[in-house]
């Protein structure tokens, strides 16, 4: 059955326009907040972002509509190169035309009482995650995924594996896992595969990926990175081997 926007008993308040990160003028015709199932705008003008989906049967100006999937505020953002790529990849609807990357993205962001933005964070391919190292063996490191993307927390502790060949880009065959990670380290990594039933497959083969926080084995104090492969303990002065992430601001 096809749905029509006119019969939809959803309440929207058109008085307050949607927030826009970059382009305030583009957001005037969108509602400020959305209830799941509420058609937001035509898919010709906007691309679906997080918290929305494309419904080809919903009618808002033709060509299908972008419909809210969660309860929250409507946010419009101009596509950057990376978001355009990811929206193309994550789109489950193949019928979105290839020019989709140039449309401004509409997303629905859930409000939280403390002001931070959380989504139901389940790791997806290409997401950058923060993990804690659980176990080390010569072939791989077992980790627990703590935080997904920019959300405050993961929905639950998901398991992950960093294989020896995914630790760094160069000299992959000479990687010694015990010189890269230690149990307890906090590591920034990227999801490369959903993996099997138990574990996600992660990679740290990038300059900005690797250990971000590690305790010294000598003194138990948090260490600071010296270069991309060593960290120093400020108390004992010992230097330990790690695959460090390039510090970011």
């Amino acid at each position, binding site marked *: *059955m*096809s*749905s*029509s926007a006119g*019969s*939809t*008993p*959803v*309440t929207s*308040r058109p008085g307050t326009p949607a927030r826009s990160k970059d382009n305030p003028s583009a957001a005037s015709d969108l509602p400020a*907040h959305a*209830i*799941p*199932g*509420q*058609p937001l705008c035509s898919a010709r003008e906007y691309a679906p972002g997080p*918290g929305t*989906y494309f*419904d080809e*049967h*919903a009618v808002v100006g033709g060509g299908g509509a972008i*419909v809210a*999937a*969660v*309860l*929250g*505020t409507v946010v419009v953002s101009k596509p950057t190169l990376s978001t355009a790529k990811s929206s193309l990849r994550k789109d*489950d609807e193949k019928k979105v035309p290839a020019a989709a990357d140039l449309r401004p993205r509409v997303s629905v962001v*859930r*409000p*939280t*009482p*403390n*002001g931070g933005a*959380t*989504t*139901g964070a*389940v790791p*997806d391919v290409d997401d950058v995650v923060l993990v804690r190292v659980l176990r080390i063996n010569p072939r791989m490191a077992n980790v627990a995924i703590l935080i997904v993307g920019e959300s405050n927390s993961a*929905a*639950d*502790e*998901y*398991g992950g594996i960093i294989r020896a060949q995914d630790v760094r880009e160069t000299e992959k065959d000479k990687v010694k896992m015990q010189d890269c990670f230690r149990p307890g380290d906090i590591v920034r990594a990227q999801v490369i595969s*959903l*993996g*099997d*039933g*138990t574990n996600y497959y992660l990679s740290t083969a990038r300059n900005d990926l690797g250990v971000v926080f590690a305790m010294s084995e000598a003194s138990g104090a948090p260490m600071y990175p010296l270069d991309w492969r060593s960290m120093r303990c400020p108390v004992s002065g010992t230097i330990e081997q790690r695959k460090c992430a390039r510090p970011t601001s």
Partner: protein
Amino acid sequence: MYLSDRRRILVPPLSRRLTYVDEKSPSPTPATKKAPTKLDSAHKIYLRTSLLPDATGSAYIEHQQIKILALVNGPRSQKGSFSPAAKLVIDVKFLPFSSDAHVLGIQQGGGYTTSLERTLADFIYASLVPSIRLGQYPKSGISVSIVVISGPPVWNGLVKQIGASCVTAASVAVVDAGIEVFDIVTACAVKFRMGAEEQTEIDLDERGFDHDCDDHGNKMNIGESAGASHPQSIGRGVVSYMASRDEISGFWIDDESQEQTVREATSSIEGASLIQVLKIACDGAKEVRKLVNAVLSQVFHDHEEASVQATKKIKIAE
């Protein structure tokens, strides 16, 4: 079947009470009190979300005698084999003495799930599955627990009302949990005379079969031979409906006649009246949806006000 309770002989979950027909008794005058036919949702249903901070999402619904709490936990990581979509698990529990089901022995007695609870859970699962974007949550599980705190007598065939409130509460709780959905599911229970097209109405009965009997002193032999009005040939159903998408996601219908004789084999539900039943139920579900929307946007405004207050406090502190 019930490994923990072998001593009691339990009846099937949706069985009917024995009735006795006294031919000599005068046919009772049908109850003149007209039941309300339209669901005035705003003041008759009470709905609240985010009651329990420990659950990811929760909703509480009150409608007449029905009091239902729905909790959502998830998405959680799930061990075992790889699944590309989230697994939805529905669990229904009746609190002891929440309905009359303990009489039948089909209510929670010793921690095991009874067949009535399983039947309800299956219906709620079927109603919710098309609405949730399970593909967004690979390798995860979403669990919905529904607690029936109080309900109308199941004995008298009012289990459909419980089902309707369960579906609405569960869907609102899923939305409250921030899980991506295609649409919110609302449900409405209807009752209808078998085969009679014009007498479909939203099921607002509070006592089921006893409706007529109690008005006449709770005698078991009255109300069964009611002649022309045939109060016993009643069917009840519940329809789960996604209002924005105009899609029916669940449909459960039963002949709830008290007395089943060979004669009644002919009084099946006909095509035209089935459409009527669906139409009335969807209209009722739309009414419920309006209320749900109002409640959800109210919750939203509360959130926004709280965050504005918080930012104000931060500014003052600075």
